[in-house]
């Protein structure tokens, strides 16, 4: 009787302990600093489902990109981070692991048999992952392409004027030269901006210029790592970029950000913009953008290559193991095949290859075929510990050249020298 009573007591204690552990895990609140973009809103709408399945609550704090880096760094260098789930931009993927701020996810992935093979390899490489460690699981990609007004290309009056001015038919541009020429033509003849350009110094103009660089056949570095930004292709890219921002873009392009260009395009006051491909479903929306809905098309950057970018999920080192485990549970869930497919149906830019072949996704968004090309052909901005600083260095030179403070040659040389210096730092 005594033994039985002891057994019941022990079982009860164990059950209570299990409940306590469960309750402890359930008590974790994941807090993430997120960029305020459609992708975040899509995931946010699905969070109640995750909480229902796991008991783990997730809170998103949404802010603009420009403020994210500073806010995260101050938490990552603190004894304990307020954010226990990280959204990591590829531009920080060199800096954060090098500073020792991120948990290596390799052991967690191995332990839970998480299938990293489902991701498009370029999206994994973009985040600086290698055999040395897995610091960020791809979240979504933001490869850049060209979104343009197909209705204006079909306009007979504009077609005749273009034929007369250039001796060729009005059509979607195949090269960077053709694109800039078309942009300037639209500004002159269609009474709208030929290109909505995000020329604000820093991330906006650095990302935009990268497309011109890759489209012109240029690169930041060659295969050996030597800086090649200031070669002939780089010069051509910068000349065309400056020509477009001065003669094809909207008034105020030098202070414009992504939001400004999106609003301009939505209002029907621009012919085109070089932007993230997932902007298309946001603009091709009769409720939000009635002026342009049904009139837009997506293409890879004229010239064949655009800027590739992406976000990943990371876990900070300076949090408790319970929080780390909860964060990993969330990452597994949000990047699982069914959740990614559901997100894709809401306009998500997938990083899993299977989402681009999903019949339901393709039926709803036929342009995901083009999007797959945009992602596959994208090239990356240099990823190293000082990528964010290099964006600032390059952005300053581009802005100075566009504003007439320095010549294109000086800006290009200084931008190349700046990269060389930072790579050696």
């Amino acid at each position, binding site marked *: 009787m005594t033994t039985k009573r002891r057994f019941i007591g022990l079982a009860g204690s164990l059950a209570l302990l299990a409940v306590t552990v469960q309750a402890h895990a359930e008590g974790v609140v994941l807090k993430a600093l997120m960029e305020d973009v459609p992708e975040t809103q899509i995931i946010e709408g699905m969070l109640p489902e995750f909480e229902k399945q796991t008991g783990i609550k997730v809170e998103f704090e949404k802010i603009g990109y420009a403020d994210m880096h500073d806010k995260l760094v101050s938490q990552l260098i603190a004894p304990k981070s307020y954010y226990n789930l990280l959204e990591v931009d590829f531009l920080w993927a060199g800096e954060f692991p090098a500073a020792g701020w991120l948990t290596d996810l390799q052991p967690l992935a191995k332990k839970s048999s998480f299938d990293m093979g489902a991701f498009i390899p370029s999206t994994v490489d973009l985040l600086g992952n290698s055999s040395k460690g897995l610091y960020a699981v791809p979240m979504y990609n933001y490869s850049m392409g060209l979104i343009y007004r197909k209705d204006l290309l079909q306009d007979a009056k504009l077609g005749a004027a273009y034929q007369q001015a250039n001796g060729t038919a009005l059509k979607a541009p195949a090269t960077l030269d053709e694109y800039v020429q078309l942009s300037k033509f639209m500004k002159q003849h269609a009474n709208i901006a030929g290109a909505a350009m995000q020329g604000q110094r820093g991330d906006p103009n650095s990302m935009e210029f990268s497309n011109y660089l890759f489209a012109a056949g240029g690169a930041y570095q060659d295969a050996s790592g030597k800086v090649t930004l200031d070669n002939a292709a780089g010069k051509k890219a910068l000349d065309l970029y400056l020509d477009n921002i001065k003669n094809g873009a909207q008034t105020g392009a030098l*202070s414009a950000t992504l939001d400004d260009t999106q609003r*301009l395009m939505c209002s029907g006051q621009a012919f085109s913009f070089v932007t993230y491909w997932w902007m298309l479903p946001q603009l091709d929306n009769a409720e939000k953008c009635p002026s342009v809905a049904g009139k837009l098309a997506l293409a890879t950057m004229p010239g064949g290559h655009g800027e590739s970018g992406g976000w990943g999920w990371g876990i900070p080192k300076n949090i408790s193991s319970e929080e780390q485990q909860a964060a990993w549970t969330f990452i597994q869930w949000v990047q699982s095949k069914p959740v990614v497919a559901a997100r894709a149906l809401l306009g998500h830019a997938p990083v899993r290859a299977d989402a681009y072949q999903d019949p339901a996704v393709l039926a709803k968004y036929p342009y995901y075929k083009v999007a797959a090309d945009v992602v596959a052909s994208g090239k990356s901005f240099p990823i190293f510990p000082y990528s964010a600083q290099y964006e600032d260095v390059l952005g*300053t030179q581009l802005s100075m050249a566009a*504003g007439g403070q320095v010549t294109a040659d000086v800006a290009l040389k200084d931008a190349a020298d700046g990269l060389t210096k930072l790579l050696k730092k």
Partner: protein
Amino acid sequence: MLADSVKVPNSCLRQSDETTPQPRQRRWRDRFDRQWQTGWAFALPGLLVLAIVMGFPLVYSAVLSFSSYTLMRPHVLPLVGLDNFASVLSDPGFWAATWLTVKYSIITVAGEFVLGLGIALMLNRTLKMRPLYFALLTIPMAMSPVSVALIWRMLLQPNLGIANHLLNQAGLPSIDWLGSAETAFWSMAAIDIWQQMSFVVLILAAGLSALPRDPYEAAEIDGARGWQQFWYITLPMLRPVAAITVVIQLINELRTYDLPYVLTKGGPGTSTEVLSFFAYRRAFLGLSLNEGSAAAFVLLLIILGMTVVFFALLERRRA
């Protein structure tokens, strides 16, 4: 008689004075001790808080400015002497930012003072609805600079903003308020003046209302005109209040950070890159907290220098 008969040596008298306080002296000393202790008891909590929230960061950043601390290598040691200052001072961008900051501060403070004084003088003569005017004037001051910058950024948006829409309605061409190196600096300065002016108005209006009436009555009897009264009575008597206002605003403007951060990110080019923004870029984009701290300390020295020079000029004029 008694005094004559009992002679006390002088040395004894002196000793007696020093060692044995008279009752009145003792009262003062006791009171001083009590006051001293009570004063410290009241001041100590505040001083401790100040030491923690102001003293510690100041000392810490001073240490950082002489250290090798970067975000990639977060160790204070080894100390590197003046290397960080040399690195900052040898950067042409630093001198461009310094000159821009000084120019910006002088222009904005001058604008705030001239406009603020004008409004304060008008309010001083207004009798009806003064509280309402004051309440309206404090609205910009009560707003955070970041909110102000965001609101103005929308108003000045060149394609979809209200400012250019109104210009176009009036038959005038659009202005590229923030996207041109020529206009961005002046747009930012104008927004700053708009926000900071209300503080100047309030302080000067308080100063004006405290001025004595007698000199004005005497001047009126002597036939002095309005501008003569302003020039020879109001301005000299208002000088102490005006000087404090200018110094406070000068310090504020030299530290400007929020407006360029939100409005322009220092651009186009470097046309709105003030020294605080330069220090921020060094610290958080360059990941070099040591160099960022050095730049911030140079800014601190500039502020101290300008404040001292301003007060010295004021004292000389008074002498």
